[in-house]
């Protein structure tokens, strides 16, 4: 019995030396990420005007798109046409806005600005190159005809969309 136990222990301890192959696997999924790079702030250069331009005391909002697959997504950035929060307004607000590419991670994105399509307050870009693109959206609101905005807090939203083609 003792011999059997010793033999078993010896067999168990004899492990052959194999070359170990340890695979490293990875999976990169196609995706589009939208990140707020800079939150916008409205300046109030005139009583009747709110503007994100730095010359008007505002901060231009910047949105970054990260795309990991070329030619799979459309970026659509829409500037505001209404306030999401504001004091009660009794007159019409005239909105203007525009979106431009301000930074990219790939030289192949140099043509994005020239190829953009604008309709209404929306600007559309075809993201044909993988990488990151920064979009800046200027926005301005003018109240009535030289009418002062009522005092209070105003918020308007940029809509940044990434739509699979």
């Amino acid at each position, binding site marked *: 019995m003792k011999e059997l136990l010793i033999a078993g222990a010896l067999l168990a301890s004899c492990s052959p030396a194999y070359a170990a192959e340890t695979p490293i696997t990875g999976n990169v*999924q*196609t995706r589009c990420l*939208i990140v*707020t790079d800079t939150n916008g702030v409205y300046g109030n250069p005139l009583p009747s005007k709110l503007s994100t331009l730095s010359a008007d005391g505002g901060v231009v909002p910047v949105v970054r798109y990260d795309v990991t697959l070329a030619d799979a997504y459309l970026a659509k950035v829409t500037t505001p046409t209404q306030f*999401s929060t504001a004091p009660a307004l009794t007159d019409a607000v005239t909105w203007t806005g525009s979106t431009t590419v301000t930074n990219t991670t790939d030289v192949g994105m140099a043509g994005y600005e020239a190829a953009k399509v604008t309709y209404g307050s929306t600007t559309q870009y075809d993201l044909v190159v993988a990488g990151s693109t920064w979009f800046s959206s200027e926005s301005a609101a003018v109240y009535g005809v030289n009418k002062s905005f009522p005092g209070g807090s105003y918020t308007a*939203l940029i*809509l*940044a969309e*990434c739509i*699979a083609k």
Partner: protein
Amino acid sequence: MTPTYPQFEISFMPGVSVTTMNLFNKRKDVAYYEIGVFTDEWKPVPFVSQYTVIPMKYLDTISFDVYVSNDALRSVEYICSQSKVNVRTTVTSKICSRIK
């Protein structure tokens, strides 16, 4: 949101198809995302999921199933996630996967 091009499969319920989506929150200023299913004309399509509004912490990843009746499945074109805004947010983000 992934996959970019999801595919529906037969679910455990007769007459209902399902696909699994993954959502990743890369925005510090957003804590909730709303799920929507749309036609190619951006009309809403009825669907069922574990969540309609998903609470998510920064850098969280979550998987969820989207169930659509086989009758409505033909009209499904997009599955989208849209960020819900809070008082600090000035950007609403919307990411849409497409059924091909």
